[in-house]
């Protein structure tokens, strides 16, 4: 993977295919990698824990449709921190009704660009607006 964009594309390919081998090829083989899934009480650290967490994710049927959009990022020649907004369409819905935010860090290592950090969390969940389209942009309120 020759760029953060390529590595990110490989991540989504592995995610959609629920392919654990491909997923772990996206990740760096390092003890300090960290992965946090939506709703998880803690982050998983290191190759073994991260792999175990993805096996669990892939063991469940993915019954939601996601449309990832890269919305923000900060990059240097050797590291990139990217924020992706995934629009989520749930079973029975025709259009997205919610979002998941994913911040990821990729590092340029000897083997190329690899994922070293992944943090996904649920964003606002809203009923479809009158036009039938969930608008991700907009003044949602939340407290810290």
């Amino acid at each position: 993977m020759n760029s953060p964009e390529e590595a990110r594309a490989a991540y989504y390919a592995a995610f959609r295919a629920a392919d654990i081998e491909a997923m772990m090829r996206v990740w760096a083989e390092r003890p300090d990698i960290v992965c946090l899934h939506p709703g998880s009480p803690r982050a998983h650290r290191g190759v073994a824990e991260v792999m175990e967490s993805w096996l669990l994710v892939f063991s469940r049927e993915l019954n939601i449709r996601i449309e990832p959009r890269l919305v923000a990022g900060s990059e240097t020649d050797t590291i990139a921190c990217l924020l992706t907004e995934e629009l989520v369409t749930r079973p029975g819905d025709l259009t997205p009704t919610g979002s998941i935010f994913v911040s990821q860090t990729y590092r340029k290592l000897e083997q190329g660009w690899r994922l070293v950090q992944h943090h996904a969390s649920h964003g606002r969940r809203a009923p479809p607006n009158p036009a039938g389209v969930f608008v991700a942009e907009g003044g949602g309120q939340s407290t810290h």
Partner: protein
Amino acid sequence: MAGYESAQAAEQAFYEAFEHGSLAMMTEVWADDPDIVCVHPGGERLQGREAVLESWGEILAAMQDVVVRATDVVVLGHGNLVVHHVREQLFVDGQRRGVVLATNAYRLTTEGWQMVLHHGAPDPSPPPALESAGLH
């Protein structure tokens, strides 16, 4: 605007601003960059200085006797960009009120180290607070 000597110093300032309910301090922490982005737990994406600082203005105005401890910090960085994964423990009036799992990213700008991303997610199952914490 003053940046910080390290990502760690910027992070310390971030949590100090939080504890002091100080928007002025929070304004110093964030980079002056239209690409800065902030996601509060369960909230929308806020992008750009105006939206980010407006949200903090509302949050910080409500801060009183809040203590935040960032624990379990994982530092991932290289050169001019550093990412921290942290567990924020919030205490109000000496009582543990919750945990936020957060990703914070810092960049070395011409001003020094400053925050460019904050992504917070609520912990759905925080361990129970100690019975004795804050009780008489």
